[in-house]
């Protein structure tokens, strides 16, 4: 997928993450986390894997993590990317690109 416009998903509540994506020429991931010392590496890996599954190769992806579990991180990244393409409301590839 190609990030077509700026979009956001998630909140800054504890156990959640807020993900913002916007168009860019190259892929850049910026991560801020309340648990960065112990989970920074895993958060980054999860975000990268999720973007990879979605076929996102360019764009600025900013994650402000408040101690979200992997399943929440994935959900927020996916929702932001689908929103950026106006494709978040129906016919989501559950079990395909989303897993």
């Amino acid at each position, binding site marked *: 997928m190609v990030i077509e416009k700026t979009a956001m998903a998630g909140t800054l509540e504890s156990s959640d993450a807020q993900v913002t994506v916007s168009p860019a020429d190259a892929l850049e991931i910026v991560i801020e986390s309340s*648990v960065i010392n112990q989970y920074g590496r895993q958060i980054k890996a999860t975000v990268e894997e999720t973007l990879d599954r979605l076929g996102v190769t360019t764009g600025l992806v900013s994650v402000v993590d408040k*101690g979200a579990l992997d399943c929440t991180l994935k959900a927020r990244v996916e929702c932001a990317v689908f929103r950026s393409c106006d494709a978040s409301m129906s016919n989501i590839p559950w079990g395909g690109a989303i897993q």
Partner: protein
Amino acid sequence: MINAVGRDIPDYLLENGKEVYQGRFAKDGQVLKRDAPTCVMNEKPVADKLCASIREACEKCGAHDGMTISFHHAFRNGDYTASMVCKVLVEEMGIKDLRVAATSLGDAHNLLADYIEQGIIVQVQASGVRGRIGDVISAGKLKEPAIIRSHGGRPRALMAGELHIDIAFLAAASCDKVGNASGNGGKNNCGSMGYAIPDSKYADRVVVLTDTLAPFPNVPASIKCEDVDCVVVVDEIGDPKRIGTKEARVTQDPRNLMMAERAADIIACTPWFVDGFSYQTGAGGPSLAVTRFLEERMDAKQIKMGVAFGGITGNMCDLQDRGYVRKIVDTQDFDTKAIAHLHDCPDHVEMTVSDYANPANKGAYVNYLDYMILAALEVDTKFHVNVITGSDGVVRGAPGGHPDTAAGSKCCIIVTPLVRGRMPTICKDVTTVTTPGECVDVVVTDYGTAVNPARQDIIDCMDAAGIPHVSIEWLQEKAYSIVGEPDPLQWEDKVVAIVEARDGSILDVIRQVKPYTFE
């Protein structure tokens, strides 16, 4: 050298006879010759001990570079004294190389963090370090490592002469012109002065600061005129909103309530739950809630609590008012209800922190404690507890009475959620050992309860009562299965703080935190 809780203590810290931790009762039976302060004799009749300013008191008491000063934390986050005094010493008098030995430091003391960064405060000794002071300590800004002691460990260090205070600056709610000081009877009351009293006995010079000058004699007094050199009246001793919070409503959080009820069930099935039992709880949400569930279990058995002690909250006072608690023996008051209750109720009395938890006396209250309910930031599979370093390795907590009560009590129950956000509370190795696992008996979480295998007696009681339990390893694996295994923290070599066991040996060290990078 590796100590009894498996922590590697650098050899250079073991000079001057300092030892590594060798087990919870390693010093039992040892004879200690107590240190004594110096005292300037006062024979002549004088009008009073009042000083017009903090500066005048400091000058009278011989303030000098490199001295050790102390404060107490009964005014909690509302405390103005430590900052006021340090400001005078540093900015009016130009004192350098200050050593601050407070009973606890926190959010009220950001100014001290500035002085640490500027190299004016060179060392800190405290039972708790929160707020920005913790950040600067963890960033390695102190010239010498901080020393973290438990509530009982601090008076022990005073008595052993390991901590010698040049001037104690002790805030009081009210004080008369000669130094009889109290936590009540003033504009801003704090209740018990239990933490301040040992300092008044062991410091060379004692200055009382108050905003309420009471008629002479201000008795009953917590700090006695025989121990006080100077009295300074200031405008405000603290911020009343932050001294005693409004009475905390017992948590309604279903997770906390579930854990609290389980802890109460465990208490009720053990043999010490008989008429006259002694009990203490920490002030955290789930810990406090345990007390609420004890009530019906006391009813069912037709027994009463003999004594509640330690830090006191309004809900314990309520319980006493309703006839469930014979005596409350109080080192610190957490809310306005408890502050007033200490003043009003004859069966609610003050005790010093030495009386409460000091291992170097002839038997502190904690040695006679049946049940202790505590919280934790981390508990590992050896049952070691961390209550001082956060998940980022930064100092942000207080052992307080945790190690003392855990060691002294017959049944020490930790109540904590299995994970907080993404942080596993039950882990393979705690970041910092503040309470040795050999002192911890039961860990109650929202996913299950683990009992220290050393306490087969408690396991048998729970089995007989049909209370399920799991291994601590099961809890740790469950936690990691939810949040993933945490990566180890990255440290510099520099030791920024020493965690002393209550007997004065070294339990653990805290190193400077390395800034996180993705590489």
